[in-house]
């Protein structure tokens, strides 16, 4: 051990570009905040500044490329954005839209007056902090960080300036998805997107979170998070589409709370960033709760996708079903590390966890860590992981029908994705996502 690592590292290496001065400037630019929130942000910054970066020996970071994680060289944007991309990334009708650029509201398409009259709220966190303070306080970043990444979640909390707040009151069902768009603009931009969804009793809502950069070559840093709360009997569908610049570093911490008889379906598409860590926590808190966790990744070039998941069964008769599929091309790396935790009282748990890696290159690397920690005996818990190329028998079957090898492989790869997309009940959404993923694959 060298002498330099024995002594405490200088504060600057712990905070990188996110120095106390930058934090003070960030606070100064915000409008008046409720005292509780300001206090939490300050405390979060203290934690961020004190915590070390993860190291190679941290179990929760096993196989991650720690050496390429950096806090240096980023800036927290100060100027208002002048333009965002015109394209409609998921071109289906929306019930409402919020567009954020560099953490500030850029534009919005409000709800229909009917939904607004029924009490549905789709607004910014900044507005919600003043108008719906209690709800925000109850749910915003209220769940514990469970992946040894408190440094990053604290950074998010400290620098979170604005995001989406969606509240669906009891009994309201919304057919069209609500779209939240978060863009990072400009070189070295650090952004902190957040989406908070509170679905009340017996509600139905679909939220699409879209993350993108205006320029695919900018080195950027995105530290995002979401909070999904599904109340008694609610049905929440969440789509996250991560398409940051291919030079971006992305960290995303998602948290889902599922209450009695509620059902949350989340599908995360991982396409962008050079290195992306995605953490997904599902807490099944009451009988009848069901969380379906889906992910599709097209990993190519030198991209690294690091996915960590937790399915925590805290009550009896709960169900979770996880299916994470990665297609690996070129020199890409993926890590899937998932854990099903069944608490001692959570009898009759039904939990499933599956990671499938489709190896499409001889230089790609897939790491799979599917885990179980079971403390109740009357459960049905299984997990599986496979890493393999396209099945040669399937390939031959297609070829024997006259389809050339390259076309056969493409068809089989899309079939591999389709197994996940098929879980979506909204056909328009299904079609739109299929197009997106096929486009990335064909690039």
């Amino acid at each position, binding site marked *: 051990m060298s002498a330099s690592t024995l002594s405490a590292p200088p504060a600057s290496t712990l905070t990188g570009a996110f120095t106390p001065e930058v934090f003070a400037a960030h606070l100064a630019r915000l409008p008046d905040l409720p005292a509780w929130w300001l206090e939490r942000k300050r405390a979060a910054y203290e934690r961020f500044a004190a915590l070390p970066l993860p190291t190679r020996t941290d179990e929760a970071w096993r196989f991650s490329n720690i050496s390429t994680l950096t806090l240096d060289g980023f800036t927290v944007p100060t100027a208002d954005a002048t333009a965002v991309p015109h394209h409609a990334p998921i071109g289906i009708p929306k019930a409402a839209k919020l567009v954020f650029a560099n953490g500030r509201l850029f534009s919005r398409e409000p709800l229909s007056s009917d939904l607004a009259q029924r009490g549905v709220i789709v607004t910014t966190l900044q507005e919600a902090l003043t108008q719906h303070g209690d709800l925000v306080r109850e749910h915003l970043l209220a769940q514990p960080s469970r992946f040894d990444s408190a440094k990053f979640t604290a950074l998010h909390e400290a620098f979170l300036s604005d995001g989406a707040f969606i509240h669906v009151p009891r009994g309201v069902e919304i057919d069209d998805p609500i779209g939240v768009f978060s863009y990072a603009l400009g070189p070295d931009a650090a952004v902190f997107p957040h989406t908070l969804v509170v679905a009340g009793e017996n509600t139905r809502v679909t939220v699409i979170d879209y993350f993108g950069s205006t320029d695919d070559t900018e080195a950027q840093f995105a530290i995002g998070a979401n909070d999904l709360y599904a109340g008694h009997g609610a049905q929440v569908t969440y789509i996250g589409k991560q398409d940051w610049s291919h030079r971006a570093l992305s960290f995303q911490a998602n948290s889902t709370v599922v209450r009695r008889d509620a059902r949350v379906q989340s599908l995360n598409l991982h396409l962008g960033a050079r290195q992306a860590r995605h953490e997904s926590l599902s807490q099944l808190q009451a009988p009848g709760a069901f969380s379906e966790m889906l992910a599709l990744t097209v990993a190519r070039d030198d991209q690294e996708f690091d996915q960590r998941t937790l399915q925590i069964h805290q009550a009896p008769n709960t169900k979770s079903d996880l299916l994470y599929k990665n297609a690996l091309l070129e020199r890409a790396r993926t890590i899937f590390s998932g854990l099903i935790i069944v608490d001692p009282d959570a009898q009759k748990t039904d939990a499933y966890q599956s990671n499938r890696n489709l190896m499409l290159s001889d230089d790609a690397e897939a790491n799979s860590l599917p885990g179980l920690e079971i403390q109740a005996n009357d459960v049905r818990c299984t997990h599986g992981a496979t890493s393999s190329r396209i099945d*040669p028998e399937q390939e*031959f079957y297609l070829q*024997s029908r*006259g389809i050339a090898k390259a*076309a056969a492989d493409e*068809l089989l790869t899309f*079939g591999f994705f*389709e197994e996940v997309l098929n879980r979506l009940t909204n056909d328009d959404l299904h079609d739109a996502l299929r197009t997106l993923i096929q486009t990335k694959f064909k690039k």
Partner: protein
Amino acid sequence: MSSLVIQDLHIAIGEKEIVKGLTLTVNSGEVHAVMGPNGTGKSTLAKAIAGHPDYTITSGDVLLDGQSILAQEADERARAGLFLAFQYPSEIPGVSIANFLRAAVQARLPEGEEIDASGYYKRLYAKMDLLKIDRKFTSRSVNEGFSGGEKKRCEILQMAMLEPKLALMDETDSGLDIDALRVVADGVNTLRGPGLGVLLITHYQRLLDYIVPDFVHVMYDGRIVKSGDKSLALELEAKGYDWVKKEFALANA
């Protein structure tokens, strides 16, 4: 007028020779049945002709319309007009029958030419009606979770859509009860005609009650040891394969 000519074909899996000099010609309009005991090389013959990479053709030739196909990949052979109905069709999760067949039809169009989608569906539905297959079938993933009968019907539907010149049908009757067998046989009989040659591989006579062959060949130990008309199949049924084994042993003595 098409023909599949198999000339003194030898096929090995790894080091082991399975088919040991087989000669046979199938012309369009003809239905040939190849019968034989298990392990005699029948399925090897079908898969090797279709171009499965596990099988090596060590000598001999296979000609389709006078051209050798041995240098071709499996998909080239298929586009040349060869169709293999599998004994155990692969399950292909996530790929619907409609998309799969569309890709197969597209593959047969000249480069740059796009499939006419409405024409394709019209033809697909017509074939399905012809084969009495429910239209909902097309949205299911290819063979995934299918019963034995559904898998075989799916094979027949593909054959109907791809209109091959020569069909190799590998143990098409295996895993089928009598109702399913009748449905599949009806399908084959519907497609039967002057433009199609069929090589029907089977262990049992019972399939031949429904698809009556023009020629019957008995295969044993990697060769055809006896050929005749449909009455040979009945004789085989009556006397059993031991009869063939004995005759073959005598002939070689």
